[in-house]
């Protein structure tokens, strides 16, 4: 009996022990791949970034540039600013995908200079937004968690700009080889020639950004001379919303009417568009709702009002123009997601010429920029008459150029705000009456709370270096 029991227990124990064989299989994830091809990642990167450009343009981008104004939840419009951690997370969150494409495009067995170039372009674009929004941010040491660096140091904005400009230059060269793009390119459909134009145009944007700090004339001139830049609206870095599902539609069209309605025509843009008889007025906005109003009455709302003052302005919301509902809300794909348009490129050249950075006739490029913006927005307008008006006609003043560039930046990320910070133009952008920032337009967002807690040493170092985690501390290029 005792033997039987001993044997029995040994058998049972061995049964338990021998059952660990299937462990490896049990713990292998059957749902998700450990390796993927670059096209699947590229679609993620491009859709995320283009959508973000249009969404931030729709929201805080237009508001801080006073292209629109808030009638409800007015905190941001009053400069009651926080960290915009959602944006921070989105941008740092997409960098790993970009780096994986880059790594794969550089690896011997999957070498592809086009994917490498595209990845470098997108990487530069993401870091430019990060540094333009927050100032000094982790760059050199960033996205290195795989190697154990979870607390990257912050780089000076100048270092970041050096890296971005260098990468864009490299990218343009890499794309010349024309290696095939096997998919995932939802912006240019694999056309590497277009990507070269995009690389150079982004470079132009960032060269102009730092033009107060550094002589960028020869680089801008070289690009101008090469002709490789976004010259027509067909070249635009623009994504169309497929609108097959909730996910791939213009997000505002899938939100509540109230969220759409929070944004109204600003008093600032009202006076400019009306003053110029600019038909973008009817394209972007609609007449007031009040049935007793003139059916063609457009009324803008001052920026930066308190909650109560905004609601009650001009007798309430029915007496203030909304954005055009049929275009921006009712349709899931009327709005295009633009990262960079040809109009902007022309205004950059016009400014470079106006400032004598490069040779050429600023007026020609300025006029072409206006024409391209009208074309982009599908505006029917007598261009000659428009261009001959006071305030529109090129008068050699930078503000004239920047005013048109400002209008053309409608829905394009924070471009209007960046130009305002760089040039102080258009000068008619003044903080709203109920602002809580001592009548200053803020120049950066706060670093997120997560950096305070998760990267505290580097956070404290950078805060003491720049002089505080404050929305009024200027970055390198605007100092």
């Amino acid at each position, binding site marked *: 009996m005792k033997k039987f029991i001993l044997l029995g227990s040994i058998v049972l124990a061995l049964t338990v022990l021998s059952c660990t064989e299937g462990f490896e299989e049990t713990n292998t994830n059957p749902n998700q791949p450990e390796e993927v091809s670059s096209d699947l*990642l590229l*679609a993620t990167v491009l859709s995320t970034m283009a959508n973000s450009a249009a969404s931030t343009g729709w929201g805080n981008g237009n508001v801080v540039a006073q292209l629109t104004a808030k009638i409800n939840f007015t905190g941001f419009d009053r400069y009651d600013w926080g960290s915009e951690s959602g944006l921070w997370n989105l941008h*740092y969150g997409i960098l790993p995908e970009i780096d994986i494409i880059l790594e794969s495009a550089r690896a011997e067995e999957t070498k592809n200079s086009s994917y490498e170039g595209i990845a470098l372009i997108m990487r530069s674009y993401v870091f430019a937004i990060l540094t333009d929004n927050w100032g000094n941010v982790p760059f050199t040491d960033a996205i290195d968690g795989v190697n154990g660096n979870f607390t990257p140091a912050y780089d000076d904005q100048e270092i970041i700009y050096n890296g971005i400009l260098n990468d864009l230059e490299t990218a343009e060269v890499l794309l010349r080889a024309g290696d095939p793009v096997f998919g995932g390119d939802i912006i240019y459909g694999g056309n590497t020639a277009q990507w070269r134009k995009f690389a150079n145009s982004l470079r132009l944007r960032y060269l102009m950004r730092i033009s107060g700090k550094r002589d960028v004339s020869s680089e801008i001139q070289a690009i101008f001379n090469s002709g490789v830049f976004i010259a027509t609206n067909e070249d635009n870095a623009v994504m169309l919303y497929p609108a097959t599902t909730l996910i*791939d539609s213009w997000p505002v069209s899938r939100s509540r009417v109230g969220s759409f309605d929070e944004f109204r025509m600003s008093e600032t843009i009202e006076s400019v568009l009306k003053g110029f008889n600019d038909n973008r007025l009817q394209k972007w906005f609609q007449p007031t*709702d009040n049935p007793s109003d003139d059916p063609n009455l457009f009324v803008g709302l001052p920026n930066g009002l308190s909650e109560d003052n905004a609601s009650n302005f001009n007798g309430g919301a029915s007496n203030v123009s909304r954005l055009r509902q049929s275009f921006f809300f009712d349709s899931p794909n009327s709005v295009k997601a633009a990262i960079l348009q040809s109009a902007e490129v022309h205004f950059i050249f016009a400014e470079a010429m106006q400032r004598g950075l490069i040779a050429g006739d600023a007026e020609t490029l300025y006029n072409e920029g206006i024409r391209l913006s009208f074309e982009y927005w599908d505006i029917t307008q007598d261009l000659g008459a428009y261009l001959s008006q006071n305030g529109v006609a090129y008068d050699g003043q930078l503000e004239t150029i920047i005013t048109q560039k400002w209008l053309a930046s409608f829905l394009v990320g924070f471009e209007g705000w960046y130009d305002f910070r760089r040039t102080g133009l258009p000068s008619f952008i003044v903080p709203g009456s109920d602002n809580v920032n001592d009548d200053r337009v803020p120049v950066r967002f706060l670093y997120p709370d997560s950096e305070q807690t998760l990267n505290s040493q580097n956070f404290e170092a950078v805060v003491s270096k720049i002089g505080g985690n404050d929305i009024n501390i200027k970055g390198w290029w605007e100092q």
Partner: protein
Amino acid sequence: MAFAFLAAAIGHSQNTLRGKVLDENNIPLPGASVVVKGSSAGVATDFDGNFAIEISNSDAVLVITYIGYFAKEVSGGIQDNLVVVLQPDSQQLDEVVVTALGIKKEKKRLGYAVQEVKGDDLVTARETNVTNSLAGRAAGVQVTGGSSGVGSTSLIVIRGEGSLIPGNNSPLFVVDGIPINNRTVSNSVEGNLETDFGNGAQDINPDDVESISILKGPNATALYGSRGMNGVVLVTTKTGKSKQGLGVSITQNMTFEDPLRIPRYQNQYGQGAGGEFAFLDGFGGGINDNIDESWGPLLDGRLIAQHDSPTTSGFRAGDFAVRPRNPDGTFADQIIPTPWEPQPGNIEDFFRTGTTSTTNISVTGGNEFGDLRLSLTNLTSEGILPNADFDRKTYALSGSYKLSDWLKVSSSLNYVNSSSNNRPNNSYGTENIMYLWVWFGRQINMNSLRDYWQPGLEGRQQFNFNYNWHDNPFLTMFENTNAFDKHRIFGFARVDMDLTKDLSLMVRTGIDYFNELRIGKRAFSSQRFARGQYREDDIFFKEQNTDFLFQYNKEVTKDVSLGFSFGGNLRDEENRYKRISANSLSIPGIFNFENAAEPLSKTQFIDGRKVNSLYAFANVAYKNYLFLDVTGRNDWSSTLPSDNNSYFYPSVGVSAVLSDMFQIGGPVSFLKLRGGWAVVGNDTDPFALRNTFSFDEPFGNSQRVSASNVLKNENLKPEEATSIEVGADLRFFNNRLGLDVTYYNSTVENQIITLPVSNTSGFNSRIINAGEIRNYGIEVVLNTVPVKTKGGFTWNSDVNFTAARGEVKSLIDGLETLEISSNYINVLAKVGGRMGDVYGTGLLTVDDPNSPFFGQVIHNSDGFSIRDPELKKLGNYNPDFMLGWQNTFTYKGFNLGVLFDWRHGGVVNSRTVLIGGTSGLMDFTAVGREEGIISEGVIQNPDGSFRPNDVRLSGRDFYWWKFNRTNEEIGMFDASFLKLREVRLGYNFPSKMLKNTFIRTLNLSLVGRNLALWTENPHFDPETLSFSGGTIVPGVEDMATPSSRSVGFNINVTF
């Protein structure tokens, strides 16, 4: 011959013997067992200690037993009107409790604290979720009821939070030796708000529970190895064993619920802004009719166009889609203004009286060979929210049979079908009904919204007071439903063998399996799904455990007895989840995937886990007063790296009954000291070792993937919790006073945590072994019998006291702070801080202690307070101490139970107060609207000095700014509360009265749960949970459905 037989039969005819059972003080003992030895016949004494038993002859031997007393046999010419006096047995008083692996042990042998809750405490005044019934009943156990009505998750934490992973502190639930899944399977879906479909343990049917044994710490749970870290709730179900012969029991319970506490709203001003409002279309076409706040006109009965005002066309003003229009799109009819009046009861009007009906029928039977119990239970509940409900049908069968004198088989099978036609949504947003009451017009008559379609557009276009932001609340409840239907089976098959006189073997296999289908429907014109939605979540879970256990018990000498056991367990777990959603539909009212108007959105995963274990334990008893227990368990888990997947958990426990070792005497009737040391641990989730890519929804035709934002780890080690526990059990005055004190100290090291990292590293978090959390605390159980009279009146008072602390000892090198969760407020683990510390943002104050304005809020020159971006500590969500106080009064057939539950300390953030403060709905926002308000505090002068704030703001600007949701500090409230958790008044009908009926016992009880709440704030119940990304986050009231108060009755009849 026939006559002789008849005569013999008559001669054997049974006689009725009557008697009375008394205790040593000659006080009647109700419920004592009286059995005829050698037969299955037995009865229990009534409340007067009386019994009547049939005996076949005068030689019969009666065995009288009562817990805590020596059994007594009475034989030899028993006389009628027998009086039996039982003597107390301080040793046997230590009742037998169920311990780890279901092994029953005398309580006095244990080196750790165990508390039991009896089934009776669960079924008389009942909770649908059995977890809720544990609140206040055991020291060291914190139960927090969920926030979306009947069927909600109830969070249970035993001895504090040892884990840095939120929601990962649930104890293991074990029913009859089989682990039962207690997870809350989240329903976090893009586009939808979350829905709480309840925690797994709510499938346990209270009617089938014999007792619940709570194993609180590692010392008690070491034999559960990697699953024992957070304690174990051991449920023992009823069997036929306790009854000899046939028994039939029928119970009917009926309760009525209403909201315990509803926020207080102002009733002076209606919807609008700047004191103005007029409805035109609910989209902003009228005066402020886009505004869903109550900063509008004084509710003085003036005539104002409103959403429910009639129009000259015969429609309601809010019927914008059907009212006649002019060619230019303006309305062709006129709204006829109606009186603008307060509706003080409008929110209350939305709620209804909930009802919960439970019917249980059980049949039991047994003899010396076996026993059987069959139980059927039907629970139907209608929630306090209209069209919210919960049903549960339970079938339970258990039985055992002795096949031979060495072989016994037993089995149990439970089938539970829980379902609901609609579970309300949680959290902040349009799908949660409670969200509407913080963005509402105080003038709205709730009845005006009951007819929620626009005429002629039924199924297509809702009718509402506002179309910019909101769904009609009745549409939300009746059309936008979240149904579920869950089928669960758990049970076991078991063989027990007596191999020798001293050695037995048990082999068992048990299963917990469920399949749950969740169906979400959204109607056309819903805010989030303009063209409707149809969604299915399909959840499959299976866990099988097969175990064996050899037990050897031997009395070595007269004084020394020895027990040795050896066993093993194979655990195999499988999860499957699939969600498919059609986010727009072609035809209204048809809810299936074929009606989808766009490509389906989908999510799918399967995972599994295997854990193998071997364990052994030994116990030595010396003279029945000194006991030593040693256990050891080794687990092998599939979730850990193959070279590091084995881990060992030892424990040692000692118990010494000093009152038996020494003659203590005096008032002391029992004194025991106990102590122990134990290690338990934890493995991790499946697939935590290697990174993978996840699929995103396609973008047009482009498939998309994303890199993992969690960095996984191939070098994980198992977690380890080391615990010591010491305690004393003292009883005085013949057990009239009992005091049980426990101190424990448990340290969890090498936690496997998903450590948040700066996302500038390319990851949001990484999985590592890190952190050391110390949990320590004191638990006191004080049982007293303050009054016990000869007349039969007894008052029992049982107090459970708990003071627990969790302390963050370390995280990882260089890391001082770890964010555990951030649902509005941040729960941070800081080295040196306490678990549950809550941080958030507030306002800048004068920080110069020499300033006369020290501590005052700083404002800008426009009179708006200035926000402080630095996170500051706002408190801790855990209570400082908890005290449960159960009183039981018995007199004759009556018994009255009163349970208080007191939690002192802790904070809670109320989103309802914060948002309702900005929107002009809360009662306090009525103040200062006419004249404006100067915010209390100072303004900083250009020279840096301060002056008292002198800028007057409009009421709306003041409250908007002050109760701004980023000013989390202002939403903090003291979470302390005292609840009258339970009152029950029962009456047992005397057996005399039932004598000539079939009825054996009849009990009628009036019951109430959560009858009263005392707490600082008048707006909400601080016992609440919030949900964030599938995780339960305590300390935040986030648009919580009010908890309910219930009253009702319970009838139990046995035959």
